């Protein structure tokens, strides 16, 4: 490498180091090769903290400047206003709202997992069943949660079950589809292994098909959880009195803007947390998986 940067190499050098720092921000620490392990971890943590600071910092600045060029920040609640609203919220009975939301998500997710994985395995495995249910399912799948609200009100005895239905719908289809794909995509080689060892249908199913489909099912479960929270606000538009989504919606209706952002961020936080928990749980169920994150 010549010491004198040529006309052409300078932009390339710049781009290299820029992309390296962006990548390390998102955790691709293996590409930041020159630092020793503990220093690398420390720097990674530092950068991630910095990203949060930058996020709120830039937002605050744009609000204070009343930035108005294409996107209008003048009426947007600033982080300070949002944190004030958060403090106020937690001084009242915040717990009941959080609790209601969490229960609705968990209930909907639970049913979606049972039905989605169960049905998915059967549909993936039995062609006749797939032929029977495929068309109705494909028809229902693209319908967004919002569109289900009127029907949920009509079909379900009370608002609570209607809301659980909406969160259920959010998680059900990703889980179902990933399970079907997982079962259908089991390696033909491993199926042959089962055959030439004399395994009957039941053992092939239990010991080859289901474990083979697990990675796909796992990704469906993670996506489903995220979707579940996503549908929560929609669901809680139905709600009478409690819930984070309800708080958010009510604040919008009464033109009280800081709690809207607070509600949004809380949903975002709880959504990420639950997805992360699902991922950790899945990891425990599949000890044989080599993931790229394992360090040597």
């Amino acid at each position, binding site marked *: 490498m010549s010491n004198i940067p040529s006309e052409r190499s300078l932009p390339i050098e710049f781009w290299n180091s820029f992309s390296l720092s962006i990548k390390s921000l998102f955790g691709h620490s293996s590409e930041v090769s020159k630092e020793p392990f503990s220093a690398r971890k420390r720097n990674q943590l530092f950068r991630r903290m910095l990203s949060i600071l930058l996020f709120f910092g830039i937002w605050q600045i744009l609000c204070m400047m009343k930035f108005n060029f294409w996107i209008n920040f003048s009426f947007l609640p600033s982080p300070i206003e949002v944190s004030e609203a958060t403090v106020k919220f937690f001084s009242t009975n915040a717990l009941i709202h959080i609790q209601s939301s969490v229960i609705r998500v968990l209930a909907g997710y639970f049913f979606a997992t049972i039905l989605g994985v169960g049905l998915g395995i059967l549909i993936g495995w039995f062609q006749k069943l797939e032929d029977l249910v495929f068309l109705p399912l494909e028809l229902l799948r693209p319908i967004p949660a919002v569109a289900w609200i009127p029907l949920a009100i009509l079909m379900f005895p009370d608002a609570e079950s209607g809301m659980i239905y909406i969160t259920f719908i959010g998680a059900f289809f990703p889980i179902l589809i990933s399970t079907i794909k997982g079962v259908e995509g089991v390696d033909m*080689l*491993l199926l*042959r*292994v*089962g*055959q*030439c*060892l*004399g*395994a*009957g249908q039941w*053992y092939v199913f239990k*010991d*080859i098909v289901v*474990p083979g489909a*697990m990675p796909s099912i796992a990704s469906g479960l993670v996506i489903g959880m995220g979707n579940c929270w996503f549908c929560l606000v929609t669901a809680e538009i139905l709600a009478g009195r409690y819930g984070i989504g309800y708080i958010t919606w009510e604040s919008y209706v009464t033109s009280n803007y800081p709690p809207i952002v607070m509600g949004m961020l809380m949903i975002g936080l709880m959504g990420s947390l639950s997805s992360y928990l699902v991922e950790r749980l899945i990891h425990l169920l*599949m*000890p*044989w998986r*080599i993931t790229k994150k394992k360090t040597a």
Partner: protein
Amino acid sequence: MAKLLENNLQSQVKGLVEVENLSVGFRRKGVFTSVLDNVNFTIQPGEFICLLGPSGCGKSTILNTIAGFIKPTGGSVVVDYQRITKPGADRGFVFQQYSLLPWKTTFQNVEFGLKVRGVPKDERKELVDYYLNRVGLSNYRHAFPYQMSGGMQQRASIIRALVNSPSVLLMDEPFAALDAQTRHMMQELLLDIWQDLKSTVVFVTHDIEEAVFLSDHIFVMGVNPGHIKTMVNIDLERPRHVDLMLTPEFMQLNRHVFDLIREETLKSMAFEE
């Protein structure tokens, strides 16, 4: 231990393979391509046969029809007087690719065939432990496949098939993905554990040296369409060890097979001799 092995061997004919007028082809876009055309051979119980030939000559296809993975378009495959229509535990298969179930430990993988056929737990343990010991995998019985090298995985695949005492052991280039040193060790090891069971072995390879070292007879195959060109008798004494490969008799046989196969290899690559 010997008693357990003895009890595993049934008293009928074990491993008579009769292939009669076997043809396999497929139709794509209205064009019928013949992979195998009128293949005929008989393998006596306990023989070690190599199918040797250039790529595309259909040797894996013959193996797959004996295994029951593919249905012939013409002719028949008969093992121990039973016509073959589907796979079964009497015909064990060792694949070219690594085929251990990734979510099971070595022990669980090897015992799988026994487990699905209802062999009781302690009997399973004794058999599996014996074979793991034979191939040097005792310390890895609780390891997952991803924690083991290629050679180790293939060793496990071989005993996974052998632990069921199959009448016929079918092997599709099982050592192709291994480095040369490991390959030689595996070839010796295979002969060693085969001696006890004496299953019929049908071994597919494109490696002449391997074929001459391992087999009693080599079926040299030709292409376009796949057929058996010649059968070569390998009269070398058993037990055979790796240093046999340097002896003059071995080299001579090697040369002989090499000449037979050269013509077919060039043909498969569409060169004119």
